């Protein structure tokens, strides 16, 4: 059987001479591609390295891993995992939406904190009409988060300072400002704890049936994720955003208002972060507790998940679920097997490093290939 000569391309619709590969070979090929894909290798590699660390510090992996799974998925714990999944998925969108346009939003913490404090302030101080009592703080929080992230847009488009820098720099003072508001103007008087008073009942997010931690935030964020996935692949706006992220000059040349899109995606990402802040504040324990939004590290976990999904939006929710299980399970593992939960953070960190290394290697290889 003659293989096509190197460099020749097959005409549209044509088959290479000699026929296609047999079905068995095709299944093997798929299996190979899945096993060798970046996410699988990253997770596998991270688990192998973590196991080595466990062995090195004298922890039995055969006890630790089941403890991790129980900690995340066992009856009573699954609720915690889902409760953590919601903000992490929201923060993943806050990072992923601008990333599709090529902008890095690392300021999720600040956008989330401002969103949360806005929701708390409105819930506490505006008279609430039943029915819209929940909607108004949520919307205001999204707007506030969007504005904070949107600050980076003119810095990026007019002054050329990368969003990855400005979002991060704006985040710290934003978190500090929220912290100040919670301690003083909005703080609960006389307790000495940095938190707001409990929010009025009308503004509490309704819990899902049979749960005390999972609220309507879950269906809301799932719905918004589906909307984003649709917009990304099936709308003109999504196409223009992707084109801008792939090649800014190309998009500009095609008549896309790239600067406006950069601003829109940054603000959109910030809106999701602000919304997450509100979902946390309007959920149990129904108040803004200083540090409670940023301490669990949703932002970082979300960034790791999006990077793990390697530019496949549909993979983002799954990557978020996986890392949330690791995160929550890690605490169970600490309780049960005495393994420090920091170990799961090591896994996460390793996943990011491995993904980054792969991306770089691939990029270099592509460049070398093009140069050949």
């Amino acid at each position: 059987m003659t293989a096509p000569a190197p460099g020749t391309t097959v005409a549209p619709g044509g088959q290479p001479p000699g026929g296609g590969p047999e079905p068995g070979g095709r299944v093997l090929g798929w299996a190979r591609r899945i096993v060798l894909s970046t996410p699988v290798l990253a997770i596998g590699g991270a688990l192998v390295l973590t196991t080595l660390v466990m062995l090195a510090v004298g922890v039995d992996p055969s006890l630790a891993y089941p403890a991790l799974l129980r900690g995340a998925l066992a009856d009573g714990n699954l609720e915690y995992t889902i409760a953590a999944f919601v903000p992490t998925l929201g923060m993943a969108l806050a990072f992923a939406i601008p990333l599709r346009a090529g902008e890095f939003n690392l300021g999720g913490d600040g956008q989330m904190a401002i969103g949360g404090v806005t929701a708390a302030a409105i819930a506490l101080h505006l008279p609430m009409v039943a029915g819209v009592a929940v909607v108004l703080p949520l919307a205001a929080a999204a707007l506030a988060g969007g504005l904070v992230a949107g600050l980076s847009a003119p810095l990026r488009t007019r002054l050329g300072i990368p969003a990855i820098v400005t979002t991060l720099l704006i985040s710290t003072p934003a978190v500090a400002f929220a912290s100040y508001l919670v301690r003083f103007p909005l703080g609960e008087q006389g307790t000495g704890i940095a938190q707001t008073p409990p929010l009025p009942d009308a503004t509490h997010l309704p819990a899902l049936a049979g749960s005390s931690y999972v609220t309507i935030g879950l269906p809301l964020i799932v719905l918004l994720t589906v909307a984003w996935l649709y917009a990304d692949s099936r709308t003109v706006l999504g196409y223009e955003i992707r084109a801008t992220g792939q090649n800014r000059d190309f998009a500009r040349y095609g008549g896309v208002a790239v600067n406006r899109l950069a601003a829109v995606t940054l603000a959109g990402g910030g809106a999701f972060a602000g919304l997450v802040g509100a979902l946390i504040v309007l959920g149990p324990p129904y108040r803004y507790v200083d540090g409670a939004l940023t301490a669990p590290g949703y932002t970082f976990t979300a960034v790791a998940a999006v990077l793990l999904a390697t530019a496949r939006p549909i993979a983002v929710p799954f990557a978020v679920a996986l890392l949330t299980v690791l995160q929550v399970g890690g605490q169970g593992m600490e309780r049960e097997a005495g393994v420090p939960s920091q170990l799961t953070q090591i896994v996460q960190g390793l996943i990011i490093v491995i993904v980054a290394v792969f991306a770089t290697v691939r990029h270099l290889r592509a460049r070398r290939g093009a140069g050949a």
Partner: protein
Amino acid sequence: MSVTATGDGSAAPAAELVGVTKRFGPVLANDGIDLAVARGEIHAVVGENGAGKSTLMSVLYGLHRPDAGHVLRDGKRIRLRSPADAIAHGLGMVHQRFRLFPELTVAENVVLGAEPVHRGAVDRAAARRAVEELGERYGLRADPAAQVGTLPVGVRQRVEILRALYRGAEVLILDEPTSVLTPGEATRLFEVLRTVTGTGASVLLVTHKLSEVLTAGDRVTVLRQGRVTGRFDTAGTTAAELVQAMIGRALGSTGPARPTTGPREEAYALEVRDLSVSDRDGVARLSGVSFGVRPGEIVGIAGVAGSGQRELIDAVTGLNVPGQHDSGQVLLGDAPVRRGRDPEVAYVPEDRHGRGTASEMSLAENLLMGDQRRPGGHAGRIGLSRAAVRARARDLVERFSISAASVDVPIGALSGGNAQKAVLARELSRRTPVIVVEEPTQGVDVGAQERIHTLLAEARDRGQAVLVQSSELSELRALSDRILVMFEGRVVAEYSGDEATESLLGQAMTGAPVKTTAGDTTGDTTGDTTGNTTVATSGDPA
């Protein structure tokens, strides 16, 4: 080294590649290539893009290790693990993109990496002397104290050659050396190369310009799809024979003929009036440019790279309309061009990877760009029908005979010629009144070149106004009804397609005073004195 007679067939070749095979993944870039370069000869290597020329040179320069085969130097087998090994064996390479430090002087660049040392410090005087001596010997004059960044391209290339010679190169590899030069500079380069080979050194010249091969080379090796398909002595060889070996068939003899009828109307479809544009630093990039393109006419723009072509095209396409400090007008018919990207103008950019495509997006999505908001068909007000996008792409693939496995493959996986055809398909299929094309056939093989020229001629014959910018004078002459020559941001000459000879164009491109023959352009910029002094100091009136 004076023992061996130069060019004598009985002596061992200066450098020889034997059975070199190199594979990149599924691509067999070099397939058992034999190539011998005799002492004192200029040996040209030609082939289409992707024929394996660059890979072969990389093997010889130690950048790639061959999967099979080996390299001989003066008949002895050598191992090349890196360019450092190659340099140690007397091989030197001048890359297409120069690898010089613009902040350093000529002398510093030349001795870099092998500096003469005097009491532990770099001996600057010795470096200067070395550069002067080498320059004297090979006729490669360059001021050792000049800062490289201030020198014109032709002189920078000389510095690269000096650097290789300083390191003791006896086999010089030049990769597409004339692609950045004016015709005058190119002639000068070949004189220098003759001097170099006169001392017994050898030159390997990688190029795709057949006229150069025939005038400057001694022997030619033709590559096609990684194999040697022809070896010729340039004496007694014709360009047609070379082309046949390069593409495996003879070229169609007709080509896109210029129309005898001329433009259909007198009114301009595209008109530029007294356009002056400055860059961010306030440096003038265009000064008082005026011209027009009529429907049914191809107007060519010639000029050394950086003479204002890019700025002119950005202004004409609306990507960068004149700002507040600029003056002048760009008119499409009667209306000024729209900012951003005017839908009345089709634009095929020079840089396929930079502007023309997003290499990781699919062919279908690349073919959509620019039309995504056009009402009707694939797009609603918000939604985008993927089926319609793909159907449209399949139609374009068929009509423009683009070879691709499917419309869903990333456009980066297509060959250069097919990617360029895709860009042309996207732009030409819009049937806009005005078409602007930069470097229509850059990086495209000879077969596809023919097809692309035909497409542009067809657009012209349909009554579209076509503006073509190209660094290939032969291409401009074959395509254009009129040719404008730019120099330092001005249109300095205009010729009709019939009277524009390469020497006339080449002369005008260097800013030398020329007689403008066609009537349309204002002629008062031709004798521009600043232009002439710049050229005089830069050193090489051909």
